[in-house]
């Protein structure tokens, strides 16, 4: 017989036995049926609770067994019987709550004689097979066995467990065999958060509380660790924690969140790790609220003043001053602006100051309100490409919106350092349509500082989205340039679906790049399409011709195409075939550059680490045609390899990438060029409220003639200091900007302070959260505010201040009422519905609740009667002073628990509607007073029969006497 057949047979036998057992356990199963066969009686026993000792075993319950007539009802013990005991342990592991069919061998000393047996369950194991029986005399001395079917207790601990005892007996010998199973180890760890909402301002600490419980059947040694996340710092010891079966423990994690401008929900992943790996996982979402300085901005504008300088280079030592303003001045006007100036423009280090964001000539001030904004200073505006593209300068711009109309205006003058150039002015009127817009644009743009160009253009633009995913656009107008005049036209198409995208753009602009356009004629398309779930095909193409009217012309064309193949869930292979050609003609000569490349790339992600690599080969052709000289045709091969790796750790994000390029020397390109860069960003080497984050990078370029002072190194950090001060330091040593020789370390330092100004604003809603100790919903004397409670209003959220107060300045849809996010409250705290606000000032109560234990038990009355109704059939009703009702259902032991009763006065009663008996409470309905957070002693609620009404028929007077 094959193993599978044996298993099937065993399973069938188990099912049959179980079915019989279930049938026998039905309440109305026949009590006893006896059939006599061949000197034995077949007995189906009544459903009884079986004795646990073998000596008291009785043929019973669950199946049909055959016993000798002489052994019924109980086999008499043989006089002077010899007693012995042994243990039989079944091979293999058994899971808790599983059904086990165990073949228990008859001890060898019984030989082939008739043997009677009695089975009794051990511990909490259920015995589903016969409790007794007889094995007839065997013809040979072959091994014999009796079958025991048992259900393993749900809570059985891992390891050996006795599930039954079998007493084998003949006339002279009694042997008790303990039947043991090896209980399989079940590992199950449950993790649950104590608070469902964890909100904090960026850069501050958050405490995450979690309960871990061992629901398995063996002690477990675990480490609880939160997965590393870039910019986050988790204080966790990682020390092992031993949890016994059923044991639960509170775990606390202190999390330092990343500094502003981080915001939004971030899921932290907590894992319980055993020696075999992670056995449980819990996602703990942490909400980073808009940063506190953002909250400060809601009161009024924030002014930031700073001073910066650089050191180490030959220039840049003069101080540079910065002044910025950002925020609402009043309910109707907001300001945003920046001024950067220096005492000595000639001593300004543009590169060093650029690294810390202090640019000269970038000063501006914007005032904006609902439907309007005006900017003075350095400003610009983007127009349709054929009407002028981008224009920047020193002057003013404005944007006004009213209903479907929008007006944009620009009037600036070119300004670079001390040089002042041409006027750039433009206006655009846009009218919104149901599915698009139409715009009229007029521009006059001059460029006179570095070259001499002028454009006057006007035209209409139209854009429409006839259906979701499809956008069509067109521009049509006229251009007048210094060199020529002619039409301006453009067409745009963009179609996106779930399976791909196609974009097409065509432009014609007379005068081309000589007059604020990209080219005289240009055509561009890009597309990608998902052919199958794992295959995406991408394509890109362009072509342009430019006659700017300066005596030079240029032509460009090219395309790229290639599939991207998905391998598994985390890897891709990308193939790219490309060719492009550029031709530029001027009085100096004509250069034609053609490049054809085939590139194979692969990228994958392994445990959060992204790896990418590619190799490409191709041909580069450079043809230079000099007007009065020969034509140089240089063609050569090209090989390009790249690789990169990056990943996030608790200490920051790290990356490294490198590339190596080989070119045929005849192409004029560098024969060999290698670059290697390592970078670390948002490094957090220290903890603490003002601990800095660091960004660092180092890179080296290797090629013939490269500066010898490599590598280049850059380290930067911004430290948030107390009282809204901040310090930014950026140090760089860059031989690639300074060439060979001594390479200086150039430091740029910026020191700023932000000051929140009082705004002319009124909060749209304000109030406080308070500890409602008496639970009356009103803030009484002595009831203090609660800090750090998360209050939401529409899409706005904030934590209450130390005094419990909160203010929302932004309007909310429907003037929504503020409410407490109960997920941010501790266990046992609730937020009852607040009373209506007075003058939009809310008092939001938080009430601490108490746990109440009620013991319900049946009591004997004076007649000695006790109700058949069990406590589990009774309902406990707790009613507060307002009539609100809490319902509790006692367990089989009569315990009813109320986990969270708010402060107040309550009356306790029992409801007997689930019983057919006439019952009543044996005590008067008790009243209890609960004070916030107070623990109460258990309340005893006995119940019994109602008094019996007996009438004596009037023998003791009219109407009879009732007792």
């Amino acid at each position, binding site marked *: 017989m094959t193993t599978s057949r044996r298993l099937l047979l065993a399973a069938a036998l188990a099912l049959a036995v179980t079915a019989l057992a279930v049938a026998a356990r039905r309440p109305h199963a026949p009590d006893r049926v006896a059939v006599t066969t061949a000197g034995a009686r077949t007995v189906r026993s009544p459903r009884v609770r079986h004795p646990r000792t073998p000596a008291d075993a009785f043929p019973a319950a669950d199946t049909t067994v055959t016993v000798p007539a002489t052994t019924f009802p109980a086999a008499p013990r043989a006089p002077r019987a010899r007693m012995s005991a042994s243990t039989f342990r079944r091979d293999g592991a058994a899971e808790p709550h599983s059904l086990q069919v165990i073949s228990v061998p008859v001890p060898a000393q019984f030989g082939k004689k008739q043997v009677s047996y009695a089975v009794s369950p051990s511990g909490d194991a259920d015995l589903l097979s016969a409790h007794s029986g007889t094995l007839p005399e065997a013809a040979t001395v072959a091994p014999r066995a009796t079958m025991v079917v048992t259900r393993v207790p749900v809570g059985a601990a891992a390891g050996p467990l006795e599930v039954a005892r079998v007493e084998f007996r003949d006339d002279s010998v009694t042997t008790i065999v303990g039947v043991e199973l090896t209980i399989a180890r079940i590992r199950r760890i449950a993790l649950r958060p104590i608070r469902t909402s964890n909100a904090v301002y960026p850069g501050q600490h958050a405490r995450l509380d979690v309960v871990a419980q061992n629901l398995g059947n063996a002690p477990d040694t675990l480490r609880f660790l939160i997965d590393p996340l870039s910019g986050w710092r988790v204080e966790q010891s990682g020390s092992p924690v031993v949890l016994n079966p059923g044991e639960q423990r509170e775990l606390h994690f202190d999390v330092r969140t990343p500094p502003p401008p981080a915001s939004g929900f971030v899921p932290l992943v907590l894992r319980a790790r055993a020696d075999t790996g992670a056995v449980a996982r819990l996602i703990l979402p942490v909400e980073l609220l808009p940063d506190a300085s953002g909250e400060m901005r809601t009161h009024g504008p924030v002014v930031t003043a700073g001073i910066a300088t650089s050191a180490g280079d030959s220039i840049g030592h003069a101080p540079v001053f910065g002044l910025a303003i950002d925020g609402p001045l009043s309910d109707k006007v907001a300001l945003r602006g920046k001024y950067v100036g220096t005492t000595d423009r000639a001593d300004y280090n543009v590169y060093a100051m650029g690294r810390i964001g202090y640019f000269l000539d970038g000063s501006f001030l914007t005032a904006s309100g609902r439907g309007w904004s005006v900017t003075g200073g350095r400003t610009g505006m983007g127009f349709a490409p054929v009407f002028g593209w*981008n224009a920047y300068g020193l002057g003013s711009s404005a944007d006004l919106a009213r209903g479907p109309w929008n007006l944009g205006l620009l009037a600036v003058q070119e300004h670079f350092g001390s040089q002042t150039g041409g006027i750039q002015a433009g206006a655009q009127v846009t009218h919104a349509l149901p599915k698009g817009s139409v715009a009229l644009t007029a521009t006059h743009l001059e460029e006179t500082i*570095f070259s001499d160009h002028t454009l006057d253009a006007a035209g209409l633009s139209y854009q429409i989205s006839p259906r979701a995913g499809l956008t069509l656009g067109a521009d049509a107008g006229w251009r007048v340039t210094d060199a020529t005049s002619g039409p301006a036209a453009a067409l745009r198409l963009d179609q996106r679906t779930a399976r791909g995208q196609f974009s097409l753009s065509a432009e014609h602009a007379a005068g081309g790049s000589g007059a604020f356009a990209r080219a005289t004629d240009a055509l561009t398309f890009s597309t990608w399409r998902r052919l199958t779930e794992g295959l995406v095909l991408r394509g890109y193409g362009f072509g342009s011709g430019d006659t700017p009217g300066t005596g030079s012309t240029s032509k460009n064309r090219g395309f790229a195409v290639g599939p991207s193949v998905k391998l598994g869930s985390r890897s891709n292979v990308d193939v790219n075939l490309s060719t492009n050609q550029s031709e530029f003609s001027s009085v100096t000569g004509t250069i034609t550059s053609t490049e054809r490349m085939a590139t194979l790339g692969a990228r994958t992600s392994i445990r959060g680490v992204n790896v990418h690599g590619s190799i490409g080969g191709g041909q580069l052709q450079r043809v*230079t045609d000099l007007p009065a*000289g020969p034509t140089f045709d240089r063609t050569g091969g090209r090989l390009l390899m790249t690789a990169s790796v990056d990943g996030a750790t608790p200490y920051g994000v790290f990356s490294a990438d490198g590339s190596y390029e080989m070119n045929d020397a005849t192409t004029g*390109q560098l024969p060999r060029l290698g670059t290697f860069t390592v970078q670390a960003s948002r490094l957090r080497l220290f903890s603490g409220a003002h601990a800095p984050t660091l960004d660092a990078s180092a890179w080296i370029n290797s090629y013939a003639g490269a500066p010898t002072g490599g590598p280049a190194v850059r380290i930067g950090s911004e430290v948030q200091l107390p009282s809204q001060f901040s310090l930014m330091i950026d140090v760089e040593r860059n031989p690639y900007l300074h060439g060979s020789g001594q390479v200086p370390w150039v430091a740029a330092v910026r020191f700023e302070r932000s000051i929140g100004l009082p705004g002319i604003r009124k909060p749209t809603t304000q109030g406080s959260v308070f500890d409602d100790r008496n639970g009356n919903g009103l803030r009484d004397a002595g009831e203090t505010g609660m800090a750090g409670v998360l209050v939401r209003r529409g899409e706005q959220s904030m934590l209450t201040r130390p005094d419990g107060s909160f203010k929302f300045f932004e309007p909310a849809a429907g003037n929504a009422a503020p409410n407490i996010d109960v997920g941010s409250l501790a266990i046992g705290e609730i937020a009852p519905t607040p009373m209506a606000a007075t003058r939009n000032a809310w008092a939001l109560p938080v009430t601490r609740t108490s746990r109440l234990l009620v013991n319900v038990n049946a009591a004997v009355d004076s007649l000695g009667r006790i109700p058949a109704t069990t406590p589990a059939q009774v309902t406990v009703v707790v009613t507060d002073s307002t009539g609100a009702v809490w319902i509790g259902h006692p367990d089989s032991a009569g315990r009813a628990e109320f986990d969270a009763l708010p402060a107040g006065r309550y009356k306790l009663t029992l409801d007997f509607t689930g019983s057919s008996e006439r019952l009543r409470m044996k005590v008067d309905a008790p009243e209890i007073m609960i004070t916030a957070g107070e623990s109460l002693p258990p309340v005893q609620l006995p119940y019994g029969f109602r008094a019996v009404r007996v009438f004596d028929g009037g023998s003791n007077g009219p109407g009879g006497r009732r007792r």
Partner: protein
Amino acid sequence: MIRRLLLLAPAILLAGCSTSLPGCGSPPDLAGTWSYTGTQTGADPASLSGTMTLGKTGTCTVSGTLSLTVNDGDGSPETTPWTISGDFLDDSIFEFDATQASTDRHHLGTFRADTIAGNWMLSGSTSGSFTIVKTGT
């Protein structure tokens, strides 16, 4: 398919390796420090300025670095390092590429008395003029 493309890449590479070096005559030695100024025309006009350091790597070839600041007037000029590779086509026509990542600014100019002037182009119709003047050795 992928295997074929893998084989195709080196084939293209090898196919391209066939040309001859141009004769460059007796070009001047450009090794030293140069001041770079230029203009950028097109949709996003800008001024260019920077410092170029060149070294001689062969009779006709030079290489070096260019620290280039592009100021398009939006108030935040960008300074970036570029790699220079160039050669003389004859004893006065100098052609060089300024490369950064995968971007090439291709220059063609004429050398006269410590000054090279000419035009440059980027693929995609961005182009302009440039002048570099030697400031040191």
